[in-house]
């Protein structure tokens, strides 16, 4: 990366950081919403709804995907595709597993009669966790684009830029998940 590219990259980093700040405020507002409405006086109590197993399992996959992404990032310097591609693939796989678990979790809850409109607690739960899941899904699409970009022979400095921005996004999404674990689940599971 020459000086010129580095300067533009810094613009992008700074801009994306601000974007993540905006996202953080979004999630904080939703956390506040959840705290206000949970537990609600009518409808089920959170501890009756949540299923420990699926929460733990999905957490393991999502949180370790941050680790696998870091492994993959090591292949970025010097363009070691043998490191980069498989680890990015694993990250994508973990993310997809997480999504699958989320969907099945939501599906189970709905089957049990706990829907979006059952109570204000469930409303705020689905809106918060659902928005996070949407972020994971978006990230999956992003990873696929990153795979395709590899085949496209764009300047490597540009690829690094794109990749790094994605990795900030992905780690951020993981941090939000930790927040969700602490605020949404842990208090009512353990």
């Amino acid at each position, binding site marked *: 990366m020459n000086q010129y590219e580095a300067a533009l990259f810094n613009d992008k980093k700074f801009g994306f950081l601000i974007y993540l700040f905006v996202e953080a*405020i979004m999630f904080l507002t*939703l956390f506040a919403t959840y705290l206000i409405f949970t537990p609600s006086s009518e409808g089920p109590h959170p501890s009756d709804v949540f299923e420990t197993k699926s929460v733990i399992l999905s957490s393991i996959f999502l949180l370790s995907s941050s680790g696998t992404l870091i492994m993959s990032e090591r292949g970025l310097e010097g363009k070691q595709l043998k490191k980069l591609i498989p680890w990015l693939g694993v990250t994508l796989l973990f993310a997809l597993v997480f999504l699958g678990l989320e969907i099945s979790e939501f599906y189970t809850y709905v089957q049990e009669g706990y829907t979006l409109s059952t109570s204000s607690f469930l409303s705020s739960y689905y809106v918060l966790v659902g928005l996070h899941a949407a972020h994971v899904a978006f990230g999956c699409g992003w990873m696929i684009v990153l795979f395709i970009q590899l085949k496209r022979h764009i300047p490597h400095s540009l690829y690094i830029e794109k990749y790094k921005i994605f990795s900030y996004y992905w780690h951020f999404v993981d941090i939000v998940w930790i927040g969700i674990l602490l605020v949404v689940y842990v208090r009512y599971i353990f």
Partner: protein
Amino acid sequence: MYIPFFEKHVPSDVIAAWVSVIIIGIVLATYVIKQNKWSVIWEYMRTTHHRKVGTLYMIFGFLFFLRAGVDALLIRSQLALPQNEFWLFQFQKYNEVFTTHGTMMIFFAATPMLLGLMNVAVPLQIGARDLAFPFLNAVGFWLFFAGGMLFNLAFFFDSAPAIGWTGYAPLSTSLFTPDVNSDYYVFGVQISGLGTIFTALNIIVTIFRHRAPGMKLMRMPLFTWASLITSFLILVAFTVLAIGLYLLMFDRMFDTKFFNGPDGDPIFWQHLFWIFGHPEVYILALPAFGLFSDIITTFSKKRIFGYPAMVISIGTIAFLAFTVWVHHMFTVGLGPLVNTVFALTTMAIAVPTGVKVFNWLFTMRGGVLRMTTPMLFSLGFIPSFVMGGVTGVMLSVSAADFQFHDSHFVVAHFHYVILASTILGIFAGIYYYFPKITGYQLNEKLGKWHFWLFLIGYHLTFFPMHITGMNGMPRRTFTYDVGEGLTATNFISTIGAFLMGIGVAVMFYNLFITIRKKERVGSDPWDGRTLEWTVASPAPEDSFQPMPIVKEMDPYWYAKQRGEDLETTDEKLASPISRDSIIPFIMANLLAVLSFGLMYGWIWLAVLAGAGVFMCFIIRAFRDEREQYYGKGEDGHESV
């Protein structure tokens, strides 16, 4: 009139709107075809350059301003006399008109016109060649455009929202307003709000990373400072609003239980709304403060009095803006402690504002005041704004607010502050920066007519409203009785409103003849002080070649005083890469189509449009404008 497509009776105001839009459309189309201006339209649809995007912001902001202004005239016509029945603006229609007036003015007129001025002026003031992310800038603008157009469409389909610009729950939930009307509000504001956030982000990065060499933060013009701090306010405030609207959307579409039902909390909406809504007032006011500071210094031929204090007070106001939202909710019954705390924080905001007023006055002291149109607007601002500020302090007295709240006194107060700061500021900004935008200077004589008509009309409209309110007229009511003592003041207000209307018409005429005359002016028509007056008028796409070096505040002024040119450097700086693209236009408008699909339950349309939006993301990822500039080794930048 019964019209088959609408499958219902169509009221005459909607027909009038369709007819007038079709006529204007035909006139415009003939003009475009005759003059062969298609290329210009195509150019502006694809542009990412800051001046052009700024121009677009101004044009459409002004258009929506006119629309919302007509709404205001309709309101005032209905209220002119007791038990009046003007056209059909009673009941539902009246409710729709004041909702549209408020929403349009705040979201689609005032905010975008300020963003337009920032777009034009901020990069030029700090020596940046463009905003940091030109593509994102276009996205931001087109999102505003799409949201505004979507919101406007509501009226043409006779389904304008009628929930007030504050959209208080539970009235705004599907329980009480099940029709699409309120959805237009939710989606229109949501989309344009997203655009505002992106533009704010862009301005922050630009100001932090693209200043000319030597342009330290404490050497920046105050408009740039105000824009920077405003942008931070936008980031937080509009995001909270976005979540509020997001929750409301879920309540309306998926029957969630946030704002109604036994556990839902309508007050929660008010908290979210005012955590946005109060900072929004400062989002509107602070950039205007910045503009006035720059204009007053220029036309007093003196540097600003107490520059550090000015910067600090902008910052303090911005910080305090987030601590006062409950003063919109004193009558909600949050208890004496909460009411008191927020009364005190509200009062505190008067202090930094007062500091600014006195600093402006003392900037003028000892100067030579040239009474140009921008200066007149700035001078008109000071006493008018102080009057609005003073009623603000009166409103902060929480127990007294029990009487003022939601009466015409409040209407008078916020029109006093917002018109004095934002609207007069925008007018001043338009006259001041018109040469930088178009290369022409607006007619000064007409400008003065505009100023006096508008200022007199403004005071005539809103001063009596204080009394109307204290005589017991609640806001958002469409009539009153003969014996209530409200007739005289209401009638005067109506006269004033039409005077303002005439003032704006004069301005419109001024814009028209100035653009027609095509008399070019030089780069520095006002004898300015800051960097924007060193580049040609209109601002060229490759500004600041070579790049000036800044060694003090108001560098251009002091260089002129010494009879020197600004020192420049040939060193290549990394500047933003701007390349025309139609993607922002498509993406934003597809988002509006998506909302349309969701509102009317045409899921196929929503899915299609949603897929289109994601396609735009992907195309954009593969057509990055940086591709051709990267990977050129150490001196890769020579081609830029």
